[in-house]
């Protein structure tokens, strides 16, 4: 899903960088020292995720996992993905360097959307709601990122609905895989270390022994 160099026009690239700077400034506020190891590990997972290829029909797609980043890090998902995208562009040539801003907004926006969907679970009390909402978050992250991709490509003269349809169709397998992976991960973490997931309180406040 990473956009390559030379496709988007100057104003769109600039808008991408401005958007990234603004959102990063908002989401980096009051970052705790304690959060940093968690951000570090999840950024590493996101960074490596793009290397996992899944053959789909005539082409192949790769994992994105921005849904997982949103579910675990909450608001801090955006700076984490920003770091991951920068390193992917520089070290892997994955996505153009001039497009880093736009790619950050695309994937970071998806992660924040996933966080939003994930937080909706507080309104429900279901069995294994973490798995369900984790899966929904994973799928919606890909969906929202696809929408942002289509929006960005509109400026190159493509029709939005046509692009959106094509982006969706191409990424449905990814959406399904992401939903499965994030749902499973969220369920697993909810069982062993629930306080790691975004929107859950830390054990110190609950009086439980931190195992």
């Amino acid at each position, binding site marked *: 899903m990473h956009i390559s160099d030379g496709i988007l026009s100057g104003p769109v690239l600039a808008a991408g960088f401005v958007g990234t700077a603004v959102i990063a400034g908002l989401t980096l506020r009051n970052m705790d020292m304690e959060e940093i190891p968690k951000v570090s590990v999840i950024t590493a997972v996101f960074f490596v995720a793009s290397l996992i290829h899944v053959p789909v029909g005539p082409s*192949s797609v790769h994992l994105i996992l921005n849904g997982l980043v949103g579910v675990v890090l909450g608001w801090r998902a955006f700076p984490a993905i920003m770091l991951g995208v920068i390193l992917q562009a520089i070290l*892997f040539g994955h996505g153009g360097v001039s497009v880093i801003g736009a790619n950050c907004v695309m994937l970071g926006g998806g992660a924040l959307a996933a966080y939003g969907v994930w937080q909706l679970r507080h309104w429900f009390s279901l069995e294994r709601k973490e798995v369900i909402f984790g899966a929904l978050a994973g799928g919606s992250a890909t969906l929202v990122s696809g929408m942002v991709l289509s929006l960005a490509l509109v400026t190159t003269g493509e029709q939005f609905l046509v692009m959106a349809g094509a982006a969706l169709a191409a990424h449905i397998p990814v959406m399904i895989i992401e939903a499965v992976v994030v749902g499973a991960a969220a369920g697993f973490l909810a069982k*062993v270390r629930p306080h790691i997931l975004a929107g859950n309180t830390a054990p110190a406040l609950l009086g439980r022994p931190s195992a």
Partner: protein
Amino acid sequence: MAGRNALMKIGTLMRQEEILDERRRRSRAWRNGLRCLLSLLILISAAPAYAHKVNVFAYVEGAQVYVQGYFLDGKKTKNSAVVVYGENDARLAEGVTNGEGEYVFNVIPNQDMRIVLNAGQGHQAEYRLSVADIAGGELHDTPLLNDASVGNAESGAHVGAPVTGSGNGGNIEAVVRRAVTESMLPMARELAELKERRGLSDIIGGLGFIIGILGVFAYLKSRKPG
């Protein structure tokens, strides 16, 4: 009395055992999770790491330029738009790749060419052919050039058979050049793939960057007064 105290003590001991079991189970689950992550990372690093990128290269054969588009994991880019730009970004040719990811167009002499392939969804790559490259592949001053360039159709989305020699003395050079080009093709393709390959060192480098940058961030945070 003593009996009840004994029972209560046993009860407390059992409760402590349960807590310890719970902790052991949790740390075992945590360790298992970490082992999964580690094995996943090792598996990834064992395979060659190709970013999902589109790539294109082009070569001149006879009086035509063959453009080949492909994803780095081997799949060909079908029905992808190709635009050829010359000097001052003039559009020299455009078309669509066929089922094999190939696009062919006729050589336009004495121009540096920039061939851009767009595989949709934001994936694009370009390849530059200089005048020297074109001259190397083209056949100058031989009867073949005259046969090939006159009256050729403009549409290029076909894989035409390369121009063959016609039994002339000067055509031994042409045949040799064709043979060399054909044997160079797989090497050119491998070279393009090799340039894009990301090995374990890139992955470890990236992970190191992440830890380092966040470590610096943590250090700066810890120095804040109060």
